[in-house]
């Protein structure tokens, strides 16, 4: 399982290998230089200010040979000091330059990876079939696409780098130090495993505390949220005190847990301070012993080691966190991979693209959302191209299913649906959906301006077409009455529209596409009868050869259709014009009677 995740994680790096390799080289050199800088000081102390032979790695010796060799160091102390100072500045400059270059290369790679991964998750989610979105827990999916993604982002652009850097630091540091004095080098790193393991265990342990803390935090958040959304209820029952007490209690618990966790951290940091402090003291003491007793260490080397021990301390302590982060990131990788592994919808891209103005036929269509369920059961229906038909059906009779099947948001279990004689299964899904407009009862509007929402299918804004569509949908005047008119932002971040306004914006939106087939799925339910009639009249006016399907349970909405179908138990129970169905004396008649009788009873 973890192997799979690790492989997936490595897969994210694909395509950036060269950048990463270059970054790694830069990093190694940069770290190397950070170890050289104290050496300059060391040489100065030992060979310029004192007369010990120069005991440094090859490249440094090359530098000394260049300035006239070892002997020249002692001839003119001032000149040598100036050269050494210049060397130190030069090394810093080189190291700084490398830091800059490495950051450039690394962030180019990591930001590129993050962008690619984000784009991939987003477009993948877009490509998942309707069924997936209808059944998935949206909250969970959003969590995965945002929170888990954020964990990965931090990992890729921070933790991963630190992980590599720490390892690199160890390797390079050990080589440089061992070259100077092997025993002291080993002492310098003697407590390192202890520090790393302790902090690793700690971070593993507190993971549960972190989760508890997060839960407590969301508990408090929920109380605040429910209180603020329910202000009216709180006020109407005079429950301010009760609410405050509830909040105080939760907040106190949060405070308690935070302090507890923080104190654990304080213990860890100070505990590690003790260990690394002893580490520093050990280098100091053994350095003296090696220098005085064995005389195997010079003063300069001593100062160099005292600098080195500090270089390791912070990365060492952090390494435990880095490792535990790696574990957490792998969990997020798993959660994201689950989404990425969901099968995208087969778009049938090379399908046919016939004209869709012809007759629509449902032949022996059987369909259920789940196995064994039969929402439609051998349904047969013929809709003449360009006509207006209406469908009457109760809740759960499958009328919305008809619309979804026609757009191939779901596929029939058996039977065929044809448009103009051609099976829709043979058509390109994009083409099909592009030419069938659906307006749902509870439409979703995007967090954009109303102008953009209505013109959502347009690649470039065409205000005139938007106005025209808005007028047909009887929403133009409403929009004009808003302070910012068509530029009013709706949705999550903007103005909340009423149910009826949303429905009408959605109707306008569906008109822009110039669809061959228009389906109104109970989409006038929140609009009053007068406006309903007005919209239908405007639609009739505008419609030229558009097949229109109106689903409703309001007889007045249905009665003017060219043909009316009554759907019951997954089949067509009655069909005909308003007058025919009235004569028939079936369900339609009864519904009509109830609706009109009740009205007359008044």
């Amino acid at each position, binding site marked *: 399982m973890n192997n799979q995740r690790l492989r997936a994680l490595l897969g994210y790096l694909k395509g950036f290998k060269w950048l990463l390799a270059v970054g790694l080289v830069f990093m190694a050199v940069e770290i190397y230089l950070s170890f050289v800088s104290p050496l300059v000081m060391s040489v100065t102390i030992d060979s310029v200010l004192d007369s010990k032979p120069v005991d440094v790695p090859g490249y440094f010796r090359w530098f000394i040979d260049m300035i006239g060799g070892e002997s020249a160091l002692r001839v003119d102390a001032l000149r040598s000091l100036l050269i050494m100072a210049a060397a130190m*500045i030069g090394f810093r400059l080189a190291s700084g330059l490398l830091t800059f270059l490495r950051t450039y290369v690394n962030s180019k790679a990591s930001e590129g990876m993050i962008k690619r991964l984000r784009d991939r998750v987003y477009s993948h989610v877009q490509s998942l079939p309707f069924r997936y979105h209808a059944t998935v827990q949206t909250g969970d999916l959003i969590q995965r696409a945002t929170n888990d993604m954020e964990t990965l982002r931090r990992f890729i652009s921070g933790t991963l780098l630190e992980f590599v850097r720490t390892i690199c630091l160890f390797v390079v540091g050990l080589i440089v130090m061992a070259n100077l004095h092997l025993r002291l080098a080993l002492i310098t790193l003697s407590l390192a495993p202890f520090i790393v393991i302790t902090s690793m265990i700690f971070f593993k342990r507190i993971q549960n505390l972190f989760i508890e803390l997060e839960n407590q935090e969301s508990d408090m958040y929920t109380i605040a949220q429910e209180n603020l959304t329910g202000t009216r209820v709180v006020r109407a029952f005079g429950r301010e005190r*009760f609410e405050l007490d509830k909040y105080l209690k939760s907040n106190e618990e949060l405070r308690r847990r935070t302090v507890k966790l923080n104190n654990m951290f304080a213990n860890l940091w100070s505990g590690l301070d003790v260990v690394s402090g002893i580490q520093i*003291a050990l280098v100091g003491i053994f350095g003296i012993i090696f220098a005085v007793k064995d005389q195997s260490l010079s003063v300069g080397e001593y100062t160099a080691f005292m600098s080195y021990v500090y270089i390791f301390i912070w990365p060492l302590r952090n390494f435990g966190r880095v490792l535990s982060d790696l574990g957490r990131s792998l969990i997020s990788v798993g959660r994201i991979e689950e989404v990425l592994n969901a099968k995208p919808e087969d778009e049938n891209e090379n399908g046919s693209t016939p004209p869709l103005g012809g007759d629509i036929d449902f032949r022996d269509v059987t369909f259920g959302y789940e196995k064994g369920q039969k929402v439609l059961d051998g349904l047969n229906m013929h809709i003449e191209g360009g006509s207006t038909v209406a469908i009457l059906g109760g809740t759960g009779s499958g009328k919305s299913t008809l619309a979804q099947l026609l757009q191939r*948001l779901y596929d029939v279990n058996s039977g065929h649906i044809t448009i103009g004689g051609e099976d829709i299964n043979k058509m390109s899904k994009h083409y099909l959906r592009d030419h069938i407009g659906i307006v749902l009862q509870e439409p979703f509007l995007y967090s954009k301006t109303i102008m953009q929402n209505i013109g959502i299918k347009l690649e470039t804004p065409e205000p005139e077409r938007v106005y025209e569509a808005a007028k047909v949908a009887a929403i133009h005047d409403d929009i004009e009455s808003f302070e910012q008119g068509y530029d009013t932002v709706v949705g999550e971040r903007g103005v909340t529209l009423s149910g009826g306004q949303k429905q009408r914006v959605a109707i306008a939106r569906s008109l822009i596409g110039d669809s061959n087939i228009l389906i109104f799925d109970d989409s006038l339910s929140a609009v009053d009868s007068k406006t309903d009639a007005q919209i239908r009249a405007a639609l009739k006016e505008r419609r030229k050869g558009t097949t229109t399907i109106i689903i409703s349970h309001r007889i007045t909405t249905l009665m003017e259709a060219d043909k009316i179908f009554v759907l019951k138990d997954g089949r067509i129970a009655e069909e005909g014009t308003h007058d025919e169905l009235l004569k028939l004396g079936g369900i339609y008649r009864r519904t009509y009677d*109830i*609706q009109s009788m009740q009205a007359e009873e008044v």
Partner: protein
Amino acid sequence: MNSAIKEKEYQNQKINWGTWRRILGFASMSKKYIWIAALAGALTGILDFCSQLVSSWAIDDFIGAMSMNGISLYIFVAVGLQLVYAALTLAFSRACGTLEANLNADIRNAEFRKLQTLSFSYFDKTSVGYLLARVTTDVSRTVETISWCFIDLGWGIMAIIAGLVGMFIINWRLALILLAAMPILAVVSVFFQKRILRHQRETRRLNSMITSAINEGIMGARTTKTLVREELNNREFFSTTAAMRGASMRAAMISALYMPVASMIISIAVGAVLVKGGVDVTNMVISIGTLNLFINMGNMMFEPIRNFARIFADFQSSQAAAERVIDVLNAESDIVDSDEVVAKYGDLFDPKRENWEDVKGEVEFRNVSFSYIEGEPVLKNFNLKVRAGENIALVGETGSGKSTIVNLVCRFYEPQEGEILIDGVNIRERSQLWLQSRLGYVLQQPHLFSGTIRDNIRYGRLDASDEDIENAAKMVGADEFIRTLEKGYDTEVGEGGGLLSTGQKQLISFARAIVADPKIFVLDEATSSVDTESEVKIQKASETLLRNRTSFIIAHRLSTVRDADRILVIDNGEMIEQGSHKELMAKKGYYYELYTNQFRSEKVAESVKEL
């Protein structure tokens, strides 16, 4: 609110120390932690210099002198020093963390308390999401900045002071060289921190854009499918992530430039120290240990300066958050009980129930004018007298003012002109809680709290027995569906009641109002989503429920309205008709028209159920 505007006001932030002093005022109970943090920081700063002294002691007295005399004292000091470091770390990280937790809790509590007292006009203008951010992220950002600054300040100041004093005592010439570099470093640090801050803001802004795009991409996925908008959505998203990549890179680059530049300035100063100090060593003016100390101090002194620049940037970047927190704390309610009222009746949190008169339920509007927005009056010179126990139905189009009338009765708003009397006394002469805790209020959009069904019904009266709760549920016909649930009354309703249907939530909120045994009942479209059967039940129960209680009913289904003692037809903030159902029908006026129209569409839904 437009996010672009929010971001703009956020960018021109100058640090306003008054705001921070106010925030710090909340730490009055935690003052000792501030002192501990600052003190521990200061000591650490001094220790930093001491450990350099210890190093030069080792170099000069042991290695340089080739002697081990006094090594045991050295070991003792070297180890002791490290232990003191560890103890200080323990002290300040506990102190700062506790301070942070306390400040967070105290400020949040104060905000929450304030929010309980604010009037509806405030909530009308402010979205819940906006307020939630004020009590969560804004507080934690503000508090984090201020809680951890004391250790950093204490350490930074002392590290510089101790370092400079020590160095000047040891060798003032070398100390001067290092001192000269400090202002340059400070200027460079501020220059870079400002830019780093700006870039961080940009990435934060883009990040929130990405998050909301993902949200929308998922919430609207089905609509996107029906509109075939996947490609366009992708294109928009990709361009946002591309902008994010650019901004993140720029932010990383500017940070990556800062360190090398600062490091160069330092190494020039250190280089100068090396030359001057080296000459001094050859002239036997200073020891090698001292030279080493100056070189190390030179390399270290960058840290406190960088730290100051960072603290400054932190304050600057959380200034806006701090101000928004203060804004909530400073918000004033439109409706405030006068001091005399509070003295007699108590406030929202500590009511003096012993002084409360009973509510009989007589309501009177005297020449009341009211507007939500100045210049757009909703009610003009409105007059109404309701007997105690009378059942009033309000009828009219959306926006006609019927909800406003009810809101005024509940004192959720106060009229700009005229007065409202309850039991003959001006509503302002008694406390808000006196009235509001006697209300039974059922809304169209029922609001439940997480917890069980039982908890939610009990919200109406906290000391209600289980029997009271079940009786109330039976009265509204909620008992049946509750019993079909596996855990019955102990079923969790989920966040905001999300696990129940709207109709079920309405029934429960109805039961909640009944349990409250209110003197004044307000039903605002209370049963619009309830099925016909339950509604018949509620209607029957209403006869007993509403007897002897003043009630105001706003109903969509006019069948509910029919039985009211008096029906008021409201149009444009004026009462155009009033009377019983029979009287109004006979009049064939506005009510008759409305009734015939609505009754028809109302029956549509019912008839379909018979299909």
